[in-house]
């Protein structure tokens, strides 16, 4: 069975038929996606499936990864944080490393990129490569996965010079879009329902995971799955748990996160989290390897409620994952979480640890609400946030870019 047929089992055949029709005018086109890591983080997860699906639709698609040294990742992590609003300038020496690394990668990738019909550059790390391609043939699109709604201006100004010559950019939400001299498409990301992280699991595997991490499946569990990153507010999650535990003494908290090769800050945040959790055996802080997809899946299914109490969030794919598993989500009132968590329907939006604690207590005292919201959450994800919808929008964008700026394109 082909991959597309596998997806038809989840989404329905009409969705796949539509993808085939949209891909027809793009048959034979060459597409290259470029990012900075093959493992860890939402972008790599999306590309792992998006690339073979595009290939199966007859589009010649490749995925390339740039390489760099520690200074480069320090710089790009700083850029990432600055785009999310951290007011920390980047020194000239780091910016020089950024430019040199981009130029070096541009040379290495020249055979793949020079003649490609479409090049998708993901996030700021490889964005500087475009200026080394004055003779490029195809359309270059910058895909920004970050909440850039309130960027630190000096860093954005620096990045702007590299990004503005692109043919188009893609942001996850309108609020993230910035002033740029080209079309700015809005495409929310997605999850893969067939991946190890989202596929159905049997109860034995879920209970084995609970046993492995000494979590009691008979007592209520709340979980936050995310990188150990200050913008995810893991310490705020512990505060919310502590407030709720005064009323629900059996409550357990799991804070589980993987590392990503392009995130040098994670270790420091993990130490802060471990310090806050010290002394409470019901708080489980788990640093999972990047390939612990099935364990993450099991932990989300083990939870009554999933938290994503971010202060800033690009989109929040962990929210999507939890909703796909039929769990209500208590999420920070920010970024893409707002697009997914609909108050009183699929979960609750909160602004403080106190707000999160209140909603945890509310849901644990009304288990029928957990079931009802979980059902709605899964349907909402099925209709809007699966990879097939994401792929459809990429295909639509490519057809639109090939056919000019008109707001209506009729294919014959």
């Amino acid at each position, binding site marked *: 069975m082909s991959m597309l047929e596998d997806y038809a089992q989840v989404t329905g055949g*009409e*969705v796949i038929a*539509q993808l085939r*029709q*949209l891909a*027809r005018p793009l048959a034979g086109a060459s597409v290259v996606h470029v990012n900075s890591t093959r493992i860890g983080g939402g972008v790599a997860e999306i590309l792992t499936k998006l690339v073979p699906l595009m290939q199966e639709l007859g589009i010649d698609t490749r995925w390339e990864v740039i390489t760099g040294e520690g200074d480069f990742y320090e710089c790009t992590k700083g850029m990432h944080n600055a785009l999310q609003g951290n007011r920390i300038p980047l020194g000239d020496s780091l910016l020089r490393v950024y430019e040199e690394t981009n130029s070096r990668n541009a040379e290495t990738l020249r055979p793949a990129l020079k003649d490609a019909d479409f090049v998708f550059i993901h996030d700021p790390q490889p964005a500087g490569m475009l200026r080394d391609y004055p003779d490029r043939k195809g359309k270059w699109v910058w895909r920004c996965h970050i909440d850039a709604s309130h960027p630190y201006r000096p860093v954005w100004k620096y990045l702007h010079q590299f990004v503005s010559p692109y043919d188009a950019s893609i*942001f996850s939400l*309108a*609020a993230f*879009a910035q*002033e740029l001299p080209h*079309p*700015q*498409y*809005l*495409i*929310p990301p997605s999850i893969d329902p067939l991946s190890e992280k989202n596929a159905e699991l049997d109860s034995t595997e879920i209970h084995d995971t609970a046993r492995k991490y000494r979590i009691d499946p008979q007592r209520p569990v709340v979980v936050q799955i995310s990188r150990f990153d200050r913008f995810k507010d893991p310490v705020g999650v512990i505060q919310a748990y502590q407030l709720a535990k005064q009323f629900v003494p059996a409550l357990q908290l799991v804070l589980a996160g993987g590392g990503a090769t392009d995130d040098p800050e994670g270790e420091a945040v993990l130490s802060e989290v471990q310090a806050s959790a010290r002394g409470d055996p019901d708080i489980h802080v788990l640093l999972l390897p990047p390939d612990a997809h099935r364990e993450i899946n099991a932990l989300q299914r083990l939870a009554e409620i999933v938290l994503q109490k971010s202060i800033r969030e690009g989109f929040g794919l962990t929210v999507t994952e939890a909703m796909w598993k039929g769990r209500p989500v208590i999420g920070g009132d920010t970024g893409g979480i707002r*697009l997914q968590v*609909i108050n009183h*329907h*699929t979960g609750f939006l909160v602004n403080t640890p106190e707000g999160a604690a209140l909603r945890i207590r509310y849901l644990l005292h009304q288990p029928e609400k957990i079931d009802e919201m979980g059902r709605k959450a899964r349907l*909402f994800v099925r*209709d*809007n*946030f699966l990879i097939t*919808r994401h792929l*459809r*929008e990429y*295909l*639509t*964008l490519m*057809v*639109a870019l090939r*056919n000019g700026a*008109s*707001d*209506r*394109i*009729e*294919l*014959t």
Partner: protein
Amino acid sequence: MQAADGETKSFSIKDCALVALATGKKSRMLQEFRSQLFSIDSASIYHHFWGGLLQPRFEEREYNNDFAAWIWHGIHDPVLAERLAALAPAGFPDLETLRREIIELIDTRMDEMEHLIWERATRQFEFICSQIVVFDTGKRLERPAELATSIADLTTSSIFYHFIDARRRTSDGRDDFSDWLAGFGNEFVTLQKQLAGVDPYFSSLSELRDELALLFASYFQASRQ
């Protein structure tokens, strides 16, 4: 859909996909929102009333257009939100008339509650527009009776194209099914009237598909008896 030789053409089933674009225009105050509404491309007004139906969104919406939703969630004025929500876009001859009516409602409300002019929204409003790509599915209906069995199999985006988007394309602002049926003279006038009674504004696209499928099935079943 009348051919030059008087033969009625078959009905081409089309489908569409839509991708949204940021316009770059954002508002944080009602007065600013009003000025931007004045100059925003009509494609954006279309998107916020109709186009969004093909975008990721929760189906149980409190308000059926984005302007009304923002007035409530951003400006927190339930009166204006209700008035904007009551606008039925299908009842306006074109988007410019709809735009004038929205601005009129805002002006009226600002006259009633002057402080709203200076009220800062708790969420900004982002004006969005969209590009639509239309493609032929290759499927054809030769006779109107085939509508009874084929509608249930259409994608929701195909329903959007033929029943909602058509109102922008057809000369008298009707849906594609009615337009096709008109090519058969008076034979399907009753069915056209029934279609005119379907309000696409208050249902999700899948509910709309179910409603149309039921309408066609009932009509053709009754006409056989």
